[in-house]
């Protein structure tokens, strides 16, 4: 089954229509890449506006009501449109079949449908802007979300539709991993990125439908006033939080697990060394997926949940530290005596380990009920989850971009520029969010457009840091665009990596491999 020389997935058909109707997982991955980048730019702009408003105490650019909308849209866009689809839908779509030696995902048509779900869901979300926006935060807590008079309903419905996107992607990945592995590709020969995507996909399938029904109930609550979450009518608002976090806590692992998979790939490639504790990392992914379903109550320590439930959740939450620490120690052990090369993807990977560890350890602090009562709804929490979500997932996303860009477009990028983007993002990130730990400990509450004058200095530092991150992402964008349009040819395997995707052509062909690969060994046989 040899294909015409010079043909690849990018040029085998042309025109916008051929992209919008494609069933090729690689093209769908690229479409996700473009859309997520646009959403990220919008969400990032909201972040800049938030930090600008917080530059000094009192009103800077907008009043409290508009600030609440900035905060809501920043959160909802970043969660539902950037971090959840980010790594799985861009790089998972593109590389999961390649890494397994498959020709495509199991259900290509469903795969395309999941992209449309994301776009339609996003469009519905933005309709809320016409109806005075939304100001509930991305969590839509009742009873406020029932009563507030604006376009919250549209944001809720948008999130509902985007949930289908996530479910369909997860479903495709689970089936692909089970049914479409190349001959010889046993479960324990799969790259760790695939393992992490597999664990993620299981969470997506199990947890997301519960979010679906929760949002549906919330929508019915707003339209019909059904009262399930409304104490006036005999309902229970805390039940909403249970239902919501039954999805949304595992969703946190939908966000971080694929990032961990990326880090496993980067660390081993740039250490030129077989990964330390392959099975431990693989099983810890499944372990995290399992534990993630038993800890949601730690979001509700001060929401009227019973204290006994709180104590149990507090204990269970600390268990998450075990599989994550297993991963971290294995990554560090892989570095030991490796021939470490500090290319930009590796810099992002090392940045991930540093920042994620801080995020994880502060997470353990927040899991302690006694401390959480003090830190709850302060900037300590904001800093904690940004260290995990930005310092973790976005660092990995950037690393993945630079690592896989040569395979996606067959072009090398400007290495010094990529490193510069890392320096800006990494330093800017710490300048932005480290002061927020201090602010939180001092008692500054989150979600307000103003603060007491004594918090001003640290807030100014934080805002300047945010601008630095913004510059870093702009540099990264310039490097990526320059690479795609003006980059030098990359060759088949510029990093000397061992996983299967690097054996495909410089730019993979539509069928991925000209000859069906047969796997005879593990994924990381360096030495």
């Amino acid at each position, binding site marked *: 089954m040899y294909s015409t020389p010079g043909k690849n997935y990018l040029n085998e058909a042309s025109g916008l229509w051929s992209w919008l109707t494609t069933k090729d997982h690689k093209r769908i991955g690229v479409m996700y890449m473009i859309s997520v980048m646009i959403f990220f730019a919008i969400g990032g702009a909201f972040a800049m506006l938030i930090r600008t408003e917080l530059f000094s105490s009192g009103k800077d650019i907008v009043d409290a009501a508009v600030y609440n909308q900035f905060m809501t849209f920043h959160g909802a866009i970043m969660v539902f449109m950037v971090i959840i689809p980010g790594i799985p839908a861009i790089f998972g779509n593109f590389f999961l079949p390649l890494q397994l030696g498959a020709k495509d995902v199991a259900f290509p048509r469903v795969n395309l449908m999941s992209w449309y779900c994301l776009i339609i869901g996003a469009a519905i979300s933005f309709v809320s802007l016409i109806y005075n926006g939304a100001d509930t935060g991305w969590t839509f807590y009742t009873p406020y979300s029932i009563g507030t008079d604006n376009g919250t309903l549209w944001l809720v419905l948008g999130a509902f539709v985007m949930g289908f996107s996530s479910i369909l992607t997860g479903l495709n990945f689970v089936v692909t991993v089970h049914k479409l592995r190349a001959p010889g590709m046993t479960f324990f020969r799969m790259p760790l990125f695939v393992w992490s995507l597999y664990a993620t996909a299981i969470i997506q399938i*199990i947890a997301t439908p*519960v979010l679906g029904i929760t949002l549906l109930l919330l929508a019915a609550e707003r339209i019909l006033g059904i009262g399930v979450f409304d104490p006036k009518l005999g309902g*229970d608002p805390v039940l909403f939080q*249970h239902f919501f976090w*039954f999805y949304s806590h595992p969703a946190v692992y939908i966000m971080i697990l694929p990032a961990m998979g990326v880090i496993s790939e980067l660390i081993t490639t740039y250490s030129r060394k077989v990964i330390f504790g392959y099975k431990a990392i693989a099983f810890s992914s499944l372990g995290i997926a399992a534990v993630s379903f038993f800890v949601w*109550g730690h979001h509700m320590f001060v929401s*009227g949940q*019973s204290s*006994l*439930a709180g104590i149990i959740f507090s204990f269970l939450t600390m268990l998450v530290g075990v599989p994550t620490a297993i991963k971290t120690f294995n990554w560090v052990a892989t570095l030991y005596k490796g021939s470490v090369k500090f290319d930009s993807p590796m810099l992002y990977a090392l940045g991930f380990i540093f920042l994620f560890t801080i995020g994880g350890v502060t997470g353990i602090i927040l899991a302690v009920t006694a401390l959480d009562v003090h830190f709850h709804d302060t900037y300590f929490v904001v800093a904690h989850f940004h260290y995990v979500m930005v310092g973790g997932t976005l660092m990995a996303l950037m690393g993945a971009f630079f690592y896989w860009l040569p395979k996606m477009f067959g072009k090398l990028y400007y290495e010094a520029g990529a490193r510069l983007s890392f320096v800006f993002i990494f330093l800017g990130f710490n300048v932005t969010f480290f002061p927020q730990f201090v602010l939180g400990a001092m008692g500054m509450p989150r979600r307000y457009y103003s603060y007491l004058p004594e918090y001003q200095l640290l807030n100014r530092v934080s805002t300047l840091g945010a601008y630095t991150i913004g510059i870093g992402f702009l540099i990264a964008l310039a490097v990526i665009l320059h690479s795609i349009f003006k980059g030098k040819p990359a060759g088949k395997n510029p990093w000397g990596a061992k996983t299967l995707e690097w054996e495909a052509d410089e730019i993979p062909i539509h069928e991925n491999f000209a000859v069906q690969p047969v796997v005879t060994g593990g994924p990381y046989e360096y030495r």
Partner: protein
Amino acid sequence: MSDSHHPVTSFETYRNVILALIFLTVVTVAIAKPVSGFDLGVLNGALAMFVATLKAYLVAAYFMGLRFEDKINKSILIMGVVFLALLFTVCMFDIMTRVPVTSTL
């Protein structure tokens, strides 16, 4: 090529299953308190759920062919039930152990 498909179940089996399902529907109606006044107190709900589960088993095992499926397809169904049980248990546990100030209804 239909080797690994399920073996074809006979028409008689399907007929017996549907007859059993109809019979169980009659039973569940007959033992319901609003219909016949048959009352076991707190066990009413459990009994109705038991009959429903019998029916669900027949549908899943015979109509959906689950008795011939791989372990993995069976475990999918079980996984759904397990996670729902988890959600219910924790929510109920929380509500039962809360300080009772929520509602006077």
